[in-house]
């Protein structure tokens, strides 16, 4: 067992570094830069039952040390994923996490049932996408609605269930406890923060949807605070993300209590971000004589 091996819901990850949903396609796009098998896991692009063309207009823009996106869950649909994409993901050699969004509880449940036929390791339930008009983030805004969808999905899925929370929720620890009680096996957070930019030349919002999701290093301290408070609120494993761009950022999340971390936006700025983080964590363990990275997990709370 290596120093970075991480057990997440019974799945042995080579290391605690997972590509974040929506930032790594279905696992093959960055092959020109590194072999995806070095990753602990890959969370695929968020799926919806019937697929979607996503939002029109500008979809990404830069903000200070961050970015905004309004993709709107463009995806080929669950059926296409089961047939074509999950094999691609499996072939990468990293643990396969299927990220699922939805517009209604019925959608989530139907999609979950279809995904039962796929070869994946973990189901990541996205109740936190700020870029779709109906559903999406609405489910993740308070504990009650979140628990409802989690309960229904948990009842039908055959995979370990990780629920991805929204930083826009009223009280994220309350939502976390609610989804834990509803049967979630793990929690991942944060999804993007709701933000806005205006094009002063056209005097119009940059995005057709007006609001869009902020991610990247800019949000890191906010994400870390939320991960820390959720780790203290629940007993199930927490996967931390939001602005991680270096191995020291990753260490901060792990020291705050995260079992694993995900990296999204940083990969856009630096395609080597994830392999560099893995290497940095490995070196850190050696230099600090840790047999396993888990020895420092949650250490600031001890």
């Amino acid at each position: 067992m290596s120093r970075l091996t991480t057990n997440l819901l019974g799945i042995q990850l080579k290391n605690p570094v997972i590509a974040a949903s929506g930032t790594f396609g279905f696992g093959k796009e960055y092959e020109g830069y590194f072999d995806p098998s070095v990753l602990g896991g890959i969370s695929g692009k968020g799926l919806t039952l019937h697929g979607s063309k996503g939002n029109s207009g500008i979809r990404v823009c830069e903000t200070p040390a961050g970015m905004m996106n309004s993709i709107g869950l463009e995806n080929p649909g669950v059926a296409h994923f089961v047939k074509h994409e999950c094999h691609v993901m499996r072939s990468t050699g990293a643990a396969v996490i299927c990220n699922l969004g939805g517009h209604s509880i019925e959608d989530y449940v139907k999609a979950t049932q279809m995904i039962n036929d796929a070869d994946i390791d973990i189901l990541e339930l996205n109740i936190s996408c700020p870029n779709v008009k109906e559903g999406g983030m609405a489910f993740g805004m308070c504990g009650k609605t979140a628990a409802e969808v989690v309960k229904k999905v948990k009842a039908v899925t055959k995979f370990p269930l990780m629920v991805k929370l929204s930083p826009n929720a009223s009280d994220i620890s309350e939502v976390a406890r609610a989804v834990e009680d509803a049967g979630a096996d793990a929690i991942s957070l944060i999804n993007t923060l709701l933000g806005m930019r205006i094009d002063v030349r056209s005097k119009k919002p940059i995005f057709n949807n007006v609001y869009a999701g902020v991610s990247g290093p800019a949000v890191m301290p906010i994400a870390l605070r939320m991960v820390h408070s959720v780790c203290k609120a629940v007993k199930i494993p927490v996967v931390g993300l939001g602005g991680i761009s270096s191995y020291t950022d990753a260490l901060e999340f792990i020291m705050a209590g995260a079992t694993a971390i995900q990296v999204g936006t940083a990969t856009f700025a630096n395609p080597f971000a994830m392999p560099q983080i893995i290497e940095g964590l490995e070196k850190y363990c050696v230099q600090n004589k840790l047999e396993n990275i888990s020895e420092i997990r949650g250490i600031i709370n001890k």
Partner: protein
Amino acid sequence: MPVILQNSHVSPEVCLMTIKNTSGRAGQFYMLRPTKVLDPLLGRPISIHDCVDGNCSFLYRIAGKGTKLMSEMRAGDTIEAYGPYGNGFEPVDSDIRLIGGGIGIAPLYFLARTHKAMYPNRVIEAYLGFVEKPFMLQYFRAVADFVYVRVGGYITADVPFEENVINYACGPNPMMKAAKEEAEKKNSKLFLSLEAHMACGVGACLGCTCPTVSGNKRVCKDGPVFLASEVSFE
């Protein structure tokens, strides 16, 4: 990290940068990051303007924060350069017409050079439109058989779209839309090199998609060059 071999102004707003050990085909682009810090964060998509001896040059307009920083870099500095990305122009054994609007002329020069080298007997005409002062004309004059320049207004209005000449256009969206309409009227084949805001450049983020007759395509990966007849302008 790639080293800058030279970087200089060709006009007050436009610069030319050559970066060591880069490569690619005409129509492909790089994501260039002029900083090692977290602001600006994302790479800037910039087309390959030429490539000689394994060193690409990039012609860019100072548009905002990132290109401003690029313009302040000097020979010897290093720059993060990811690429080459995208499909690039398909070389065809035919007479061709280049239609460039403003900084949109950047990738067309490399196309002209490549085309001339492959099909020396084919005719290359360049129609170049500028809002104000033209730039880089001498480059195009050296390789194209005919260079037409317009300052102000729409260059597409002056292009004689013809059935047996293939057109390649790059420029602001309204220009490309106009080119598509004109070309369709005249039944003339037209390739467009599209622009879109990008985050990843490799097809992973779906930030750059454009609607086409066969569904959404990613400008960075499936493009940036598309057959005009396939593109659905909004």
